[in-house]
């Protein structure tokens, strides 16, 4: 793994503080200021969200020509649309004339977008194609060909739609690096891949946006305390409070990371998360051997695609006497100022699966994660209170978070078949430090 160190960077905030004095990634200390400073929030919008690839939607959300959804890159709204020519486009939702959002419905189907202010009309790729009373109003002074809603570059990886407003982004494969191997395992283990069930659930949490990604990328340890009631209720079938320890903790370049948890060797786990037999056969025929071996005996995956898209691939028992249900959830921590985020959560299942399996996935999801989910509410309680407790001057000046779990542990591949920097045992804060390294590198550039 390339170590993206922040030492030697002399970036200073407006009060003269050096960025490097806020992060000691070598020794595992991060200043509370990093999750609460409005100046850093502005820098994040400019130096992170305007530059990196941001995953914002899944192709199954816009399956037909003309389908669109509204999403966010940083705190700015974009339209994700499938054109009449079946190509996917992402544009800033602001008219070239006065900046009015041209789409105000969260999702819909249309061959063109017409601005409600003056009627400027755009094709789905953002090209201006219509201007009311063009001759009388503008005459020769406006050449429609020259104007376009601000356009993002788009990349699709195993159905996940990434976009960036960076004119010269790194190739998406380079940006994702070894994380891509795991995305294939989760999103494309059958020929048709995963499908979003329903629409994303959304809610606002009074928390800094980074706390979600920090948790999902590597915090297997909080399950012990925060989610203890899930253990007591046997939603965690083994009933073992240390259930999230038994796995690997994997870091990738550019801040991406994940943890993959099975169970102690003596505990039996259903194959491929207990998918029905027909789906298991498709997995055998689709996934390369390495991913198949990794995916075969797992119960929980948690991770974050830097900067703000996390995922969970979970199996929970939510009803007595019934087999556990499994699902993949994507979750985006959309920034809304330094002290608030809007959470978008999706639930996905194999597209080819039966309605019964999809129903079980969704039912298991809404009982555990999503707005009504027990574990989701556990987390939101923590993150909102962290922001409440750390946005004051004293916390910002004097509080350093401890990120020393696993800091002396060396990478160890063991028999894990997947790429990345692998640590045995998922109780570690290496992935979190890896995010902070990527964050600091971009802020200081």
């Amino acid at each position, binding site marked *: 793994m390339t170590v993206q160190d922040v030492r030697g960077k002399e970036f200073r905030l407006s009060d003269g503080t050096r960025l490097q004095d806020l992060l000691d990634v070598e020794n595992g200390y991060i200043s509370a200021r990093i999750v609460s400073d409005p100046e850093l929030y502005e820098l994040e919008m400019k130096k992170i969200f305007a530059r990196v690839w941001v995953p914002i939607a899944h192709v199954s959300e816009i399956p037909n020509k003309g389908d669109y959804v509204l999403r966010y890159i940083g705190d700015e709204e974009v339209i994700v649309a499938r*054109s*009449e*020519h079946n190509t996917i486009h992402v544009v800033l939702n602001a008219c070239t004339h006065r900046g009015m959002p041209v*789409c*105000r*419905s969260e999702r*819909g*189907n*249309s*061959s*063109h*977008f*017409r601005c409600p202010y003056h*009627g*400027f*009309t755009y*094709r789905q790729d953002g090209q201006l*194609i*219509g*201007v*009311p*009373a*063009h001759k009388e109003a503008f005459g020769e002074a406006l050449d*429609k060909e020259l104007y376009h809603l601000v356009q993002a570059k788009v990349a699709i990886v195993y159905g996940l739609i990434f976009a960036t407003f960076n004119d010269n982004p790194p190739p998406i494969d380079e940006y994702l690096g070894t994380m891509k191997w795991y995305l294939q395992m989760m999103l494309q283990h059958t020929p048709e891949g995963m499908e979003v069930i329903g629409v994303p659930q959304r809610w606002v949490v009074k928390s800094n946006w980074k706390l979600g990604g920090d948790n999902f990328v590597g915090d297997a340890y909080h399950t012990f305390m925060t989610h203890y009631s899930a253990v007591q209720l046997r939603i965690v079938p083994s009933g073992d409070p240390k259930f999230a320890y038994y796995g690997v903790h994997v870091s990738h370049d550019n801040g991406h990371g994940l943890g993959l948890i099975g169970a102690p060797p003596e505990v039996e786990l259903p194959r491929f998360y207990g998918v029905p037999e027909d789906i298991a056969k498709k997995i055998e025929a689709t996934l390369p051997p390495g991913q198949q071996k990794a995916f075969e005996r797992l119960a929980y995956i948690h991770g974050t695609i830097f900067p703000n898209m996390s995922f969970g691939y979970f199996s929970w028992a939510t009803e007595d006497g019934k087999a556990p249900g499994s699902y993949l959830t994507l979750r985006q921590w959309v920034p809304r100022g330094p002290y608030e985020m809007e959470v978008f959560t999706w639930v996905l299942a194999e597209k080819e699966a039966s309605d019964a399996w999809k129903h079980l996935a969704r039912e298991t999801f809404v009982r555990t994660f999503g707005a009504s989910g027990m574990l989701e509410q556990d987390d939101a309680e923590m993150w909102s209170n962290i922001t409440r407790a750390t946005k004051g001057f004293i916390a910002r000046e004097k509080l350093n978070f401890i990120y020393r779990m696993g800091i002396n542990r060396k990478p160890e591949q063991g028999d894990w078949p997947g790429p990345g920097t692998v640590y045995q045992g998922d109780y570690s804060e290496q992935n979190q430090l890896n995010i902070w390294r990527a964050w600091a590198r971009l802020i200081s550039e």
Partner: protein
Amino acid sequence: MEHLDGQLDGQIDEKAPAIVIGNEFTQVIIRKVYTRNGERLEIFSPKLDRTIWLDPLALESLTWQEPEVFTSFLAKPFGY
């Protein structure tokens, strides 16, 4: 040749039940209309108070149009 005004106000024997097609941008009401000798599809825009009747040949010709044709129609977003 004699020009007959008000073609769209011509005699309609019967109108089929209407269906509404809408999205956040506009809404149209469409229905089949029966004339003495045949039938057409009526598209009505309540917002613009405009109507067009399309016969089977005109409708069929729409099926081979490229998306750009409709883009060119929308160069005048309200018909002017």
